[in-house]
């Protein structure tokens, strides 16, 4: 199983780090990919992840109202919705992609989010492209 976590430099990445620091366990199937801000997210990043073998994609940005660049995480949420629409047209369940807003000190929430996505993959089966 491979879950791609597109995490922002500020909260997303820090929450993953905090999960480790505080000894939270989460599935090893997650691959965090650090980006400057989830506002940099493009729909093609999500599609590309699936094309390269991802079973699920999670986008982790700061809490709404806490984005370091004002509203990057709000843009990201819209793009996740847009990606869902495209995935639906391709016959891929939109549940395979999800936006999470997690603060840098909420390591436990990052761990929960990964478990949530793992649960979805177990329920939905392998992703659309096997690599």
């Amino acid at each position, binding site marked *: 199983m491979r879950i791609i976590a597109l995490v922002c430099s500020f909260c997303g990445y820090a929450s993953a780090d905090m999960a480790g620091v505080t000894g939270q366990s989460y599935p090893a199937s997650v691959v965090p990919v650090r980006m400057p801000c989830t506002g940099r997210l*493009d729909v*093609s990043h999500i*599609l590309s992840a699936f*094309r390269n073998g991802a079973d699920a994609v999670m986008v982790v940005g700061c809490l709404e109202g806490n984005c370091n660049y004002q509203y990057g995480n709000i843009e990201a949420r819209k793009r996740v919705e847009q990606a869902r629409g495209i995935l639906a*047209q391709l016959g891929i369940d939109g549940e395979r992609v999800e936006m999470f807003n997690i603060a840098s000190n909420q390591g436990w929430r990052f761990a929960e989010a990964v478990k949530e996505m793992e649960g979805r993959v177990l329920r939905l089966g392998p992703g*659309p492209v096997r690599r």
Partner: protein
Amino acid sequence: MIIAEQKGIEELIGILEGHKDILVVGCRSCVAICLAGGEKEVGVLSEALRLHSDMRSKGWNISEVTLERACEKEWAYELDQLVEGKDCVISLACGVGAQVIQELFPDVRVVPGLNTSNMGAPEEQGVYNEKCGGCGDCVLHLTGGICPIARCAKSLLNGPCGGSQEGKCEIDPEVPCAWDQIYHSLEKLGRLELMDVPIPPKDWGPSRSGGPRKMVRSEAILTDEQNRMKGGKR
């Protein structure tokens, strides 16, 4: 600007049946502004088609490019090398751009990736309103800068119909009545007397009713010699 929106991916996949080497072509002009066919949209559509191809083992070879302005031959010629070996071009330019590309490269099938809709303007980011009907005989000087041809559902020229209620059109409570807007615009301009100027029955000859339109600016046409000197392509 030209307003357009992308066709559904399912429809496009159907159109692409039987093709292998596909070039997705966008345009940085109008369709980029209305977020239908600019560089980003080209990237997203290309990636979606690649994903579909990989899922269904179609073996599509998809490349992408975005032109500065697809409706001008000078820019569209930039595809010269890129269409080499392609059996299909998906045009994310407007219908005009798609036709120019097809005309320049008659050996490659050009399919439309967009549904081109109208001449309009962005109201705000993501909202686009039709503004001009392209009738070829403008009356904006009489109508407070609001086009009754494009913005009145009936294209009425001398005031609203009975379907105008509280400033809205009967076709949809969200659609403003163009003649209500015209009245208020003239009021602000202090030119309400223009409401009394009758606009005679319109000559629709310069509009689409006269068939496809052609405009010639003879002073701008290059002579054969000028073309040779500039290395222009005709």
